[in-house]
């Protein structure tokens, strides 16, 4: 079923909307949640929370990209769950992502001024749009979808080594870009 039809079902308050959403995007949403939480039950719960949030927000929302919308909901729910479960401990994925992104934090001579997340997000959008499609895809799959190197390589049809090198270059570029933009985290 097309995304527009599913959104229409949501607007019509039809229970079929959830079923169709689950059938079309359930696996991917579950995988996204699993990438962050590494727990099947928690991931399933987050996916259910996603459907619930979608039901509550559609309407009035009418997203142009349904999967991106749902994925954002699932990601938020997963990170909330992650924070709840592991106040002090971290999963391996978060640790690895954190380590990788550490090098993206620009050096700043103005530690007092801290940019808002929105501002940072806007900068990221600009940065990514300027990048080649394949590199952009790899970067977002890694740091937005929290996919493993192996999964990214399989999805993009490239080797894991190439994925790692692309991410390395992207991180370097991002750091330079953020410094040039004066973004302070």
């Amino acid at each position, binding site marked *: 079923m097309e995304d527009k039809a599913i959104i229409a079902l949501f607007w019509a308050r039809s229970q079929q909307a959830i079923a169709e959403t689950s059938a079309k995007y359930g*696996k*991917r949403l*579950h*995988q996204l949640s*699993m*990438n962050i939480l*590494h727990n099947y039950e928690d991931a399933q719960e987050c996916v259910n929370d996603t459907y619930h949030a979608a039901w509550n927000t559609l309407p009035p929302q009418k*997203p*142009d*990209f349904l*999967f*991106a*919308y749902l*994925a*954002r909901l699932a*990601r*938020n729910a997963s*990170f909330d769950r992650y924070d709840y479960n592991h106040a002090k401990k971290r999963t*391996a*994925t978060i640790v690895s*992502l*954190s380590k990788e*992104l*550490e090098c*993206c*934090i620009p050096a700043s001579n103005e530690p007092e001024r*801290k940019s808002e*997340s*929105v501002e*940072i*997000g*806007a900068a*990221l*959008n600009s940065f*990514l*749009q300027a990048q080649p*499609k394949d590199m*952009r*895809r790899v*970067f*977002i*799959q890694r*740091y*937005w*979808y929290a*996919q*493993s190197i*192996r*999964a*990214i390589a*399989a*999805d993009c049809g490239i080797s894991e080594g190439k994925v790692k090198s692309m991410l390395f270059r992207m991180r370097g570029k991002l750091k330079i870009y953020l410094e040039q933009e004066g973004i302070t*985290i």
Partner: protein
Amino acid sequence: MKARDIQIRRLLDAMMYLEDALIEEAAPGEESALIGEKRTRFWKRKGNLRKMTACAAILFVAVVSLWVWKSSFTAKERSALDNGQNAGAASFGAPAECAEEFVPETNTVGVKNKNAADLNAQMPADSADSGMITDKAEIAVLEADKDVATGDVADESKDGTIVRLIEEFPPKFEQGEKGGGSNAVKCYKQPEKGGCVLYNGLQAAIDYWDNANNTIELAEPERYLYHVAIDVFGDVAQNGRMVYEELRLSDAGKELLYQEYERLLISGICVSLSEDFQLTGTLSREELENFEPSADYGYAFRLVNE
């Protein structure tokens, strides 16, 4: 949280503000959704180690139980064989197939007089093997003996002769053979006191093997021993009167039979008395022909499977 961690988390959170178009564009395919991170080793996953241990324990118990059951089953089979229940079971076929070929482990084969008497002088309850020559049977080299049969056997055994043990004769044999009477007669007259009767099957086997009536080519065996059941008849006191019947049918008769069994042993005949008081023996043709019966008893010889 450390400052650095906060910064990193802010960056990750900022990713939330990426445009939907970029997110949609980079959405991984459904196939890659099945490829997660490198799977944790099965036994490292939570709870699986416990499950594996439980499965291993159950498997171990099952294997041990099966082994114990098989051991007991095998022991029962061996016990049955030791009792001679399967002794001498030969199919009815060509004579060569019927006869059990006995090849001694040593080069010498024979029936030991004294030793056999010693070895076979057991309580009836112990003599469950019915005297069949098996690997377990204690057969030793005879010293030179004045008994012709024994001496002949010993002499021949020293040369490595193979002895064939005859336990049954096929019910069907060619008509017209000398000595080959019909085996359809099942009723036999009781042997008289001091006399012996050879059943038709035994007589036919002797004629076939020992009396050169064998129509098939002779192979290595040169000596034949006949595994026979010996039915002993005598006077038994019953209800105040004497009845001439088979000794093993009554308690009083069994006592007499046991005495006769000991007498035969001492005389050098290889005999054995089973739990049910069936007297059996392994005799050559000469021993059968030269058998010296007691004047008080009658003897009926037949092949064990007749």
